[in-house]
């Protein structure tokens, strides 16, 4: 059974079958050939894998971000970021970093950032005279902040796959690492700007101008606070908070900024629906795959194997980090997450890790996997949108990825980076 499961899966991936279908097909083939289970379990697992109310935060967060963009709030955010840091040396690069951090509070996905603001930042940097590959690399790496600063789609899915952590806890755990990523990337940008003699400052805005752009960006800047306040105060569940975020985005777009026309609402819902289908099909198909992994007792045997190599929790953490990083390099984040979480879960209990710290290390690791070649979905988006060769962006991204790995190492080595904030708000179990 395991031969068919893994054989079909890896061959499918290799020849370019969509990741979701590779998982579904290998699961179906394994079930049908093995014959121990009725064929009907396949659609049943596909159905049950996404029959979850907490999971609905995902389409709502997608929707909220799409509505915010349709209302023109992305532009207001960008202007605010430019007014705030555009006048520093290497200005647009810093604007790129800050914008990704601000946009991360609206959107929960790195791909949304890369395809939206990331693409715009890249073209702005190129027009200003930055090297196209570097502009692309910076837009790609800053996009990985999206799933680290709340809200975050992969954190929602992590919390659903692992009952040891909560969405609220993970969201809070991501705040400090997300800011650290921003600082690290800004530092590299500063260094690159000095090394290559980039100046590219925009004019320093007047205080009044800054206040004005802040005011225009306010509706978007408020969104993460509304979400977090609602969840932390126990007013909403994360799914409800996401729905409230959608309602908020609708009200802001229709009545406050008035950038959203009534006629544009259905198209935005359709677009968000298509994006939801792409994401949740992976979650659905992965559920049959990860069920078979448990049937085959892969998680337990892996935990035992790692346990036989070393007894030191620190060593295990490092081994896990390497394993996750390698997976993140070759598989897409979401499928990697859904496959790895049940596989790695037993290690948390066996070695007594803090589940939240462990989860944060895995999420951050996989987020970095979005920009590591050979399979870096965000790099693909950037190289397609910017028409830059994949190899060139990947090469230019190296120092930036290295900076992100330093942050990852810090998050792994110092649990307090991720755990302090959730602990302060009482979200530790």
């Amino acid at each position, binding site marked *: 059974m395991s031969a068919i499961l893994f054989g079909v899966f890896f061959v499918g991936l290799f020849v370019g079958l969509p990741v979701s279908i590779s998982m579904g097909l290998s699961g179906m083939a394994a079930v049908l050939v093995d014959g121990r289970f009725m064929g009907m379990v396949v659609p049943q697992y596909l159905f049950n894998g996404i029959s979850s109310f907490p999971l609905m935060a995902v*389409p709502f967060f997608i929707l909220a971000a799409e509505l915010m963009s349709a209302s023109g709030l992305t532009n207001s955010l960008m202007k605010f970021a430019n007014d705030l840091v555009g006048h520093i040396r290497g200005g647009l690069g810093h604007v790129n970093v800050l914008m990704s951090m601000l946009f991360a509070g609206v959107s929960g996905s790195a791909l949304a950032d890369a395809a939206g603001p990331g693409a715009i930042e890249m073209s702005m940097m190129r027009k200003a005279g930055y090297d196209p590959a570097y502009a692309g690399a910076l837009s790609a790496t800053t996009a990985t902040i999206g799933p680290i600063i709340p809200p975050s789609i992969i954190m929602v899915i992590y919390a659903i796959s692992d009952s040891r952590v909560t969405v609220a806890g993970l969201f809070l755990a991501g705040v400090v690492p997300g800011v650290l990523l921003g600082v690290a990337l800004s530092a590299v940008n500063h260094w690159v700007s000095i090394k290559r003699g980039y100046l590219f400052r925009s004019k320093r805005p007047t205080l009044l101008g800054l206040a004005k752009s802040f005011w225009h960006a306010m509706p978007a800047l408020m969104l993460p606070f509304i979400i977090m306040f609602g969840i932390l105060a126990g007013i909403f569940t994360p799914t409800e908070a996401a729905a409230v975020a959608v309602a908020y985005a609708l009200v802001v777009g229709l009545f406050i900024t008035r950038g959203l026309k009534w006629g544009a609402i259905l198209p935005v819902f359709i677009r968000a629906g298509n994006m939801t289908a792409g994401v949740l*099909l992976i979650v659905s198909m992965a559920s049959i795959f990860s069920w078979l992994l448990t049937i085959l007792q892969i998680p337990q045997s892996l935990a035992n194997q790692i346990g036989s190599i070393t007894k030191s929790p620190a060593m295990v953490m490092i081994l896990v980090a390497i394993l996750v990083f390698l997976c993140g390099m070759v598989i897409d984040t979401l499928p990697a997450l859904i496959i790895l979480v049940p596989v790695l879960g037993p290690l948390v209990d066996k070695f007594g890790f803090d589940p939240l710290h462990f989860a944060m290390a895995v999420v951050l690791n996989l987020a970095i996997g979005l920009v590591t070649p050979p399979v870096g979905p965000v790099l693909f988006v950037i190289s397609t949108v910017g028409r830059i060769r994949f190899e060139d962006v990947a090469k230019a991204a190296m120092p930036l990825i290295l900076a992100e790995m330093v942050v990852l190492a810090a998050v792994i080595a110092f649990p307090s980076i991720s755990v302090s904030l959730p602990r302060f708000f009482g979200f530790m179990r």
Partner: protein
Amino acid sequence: MLEKFDRFFVRANQILIGVMMLLMFVLVFINVLGRYGIGKSWAAAEEISTFLMIWVTYLGAGLALREGRHAAIDMFQDKLPVGLRRTVRALLGVVILAFFAVLAWLGVRMSIFGWSQETIATQMPTGIPYLAIPLGAIMFCMHLALTFKDWTDKRWEEIVVEGADIGIEEKIA
């Protein structure tokens, strides 16, 4: 004729997805308002909206295919000469059609099986929400068959990305 059907099919599918998303949002949001406004919440809202999400996923999967939204690793096939790549993609297309055809058949059996069971909150036959999978699988096959040549050529439908016009560029010194 086929082209006309294709356009109608896509439009109908899109509107279906949009309306289901809208309904899903309205149900959840009204439930939140209801809980704080009149102190009541409606358990069925949670269940129906969850089913709607599953329907959006499976009935929207074909549209997502047309827009190239199903992530795949194309590294290997991109190294092939164009003719061979087309053949490989055509074969993959056939594999995908077969997969969804089998899934549709298994899904129909599951729905028939589920017809005699009831869901928890609304007590409708479980077979009704289950239908999302066979219906979605059939629609996915139709979308793929109608755009099979685009699939083999790896030509996706236009995804409109709105540009930004904020005039930052002029301000760069």
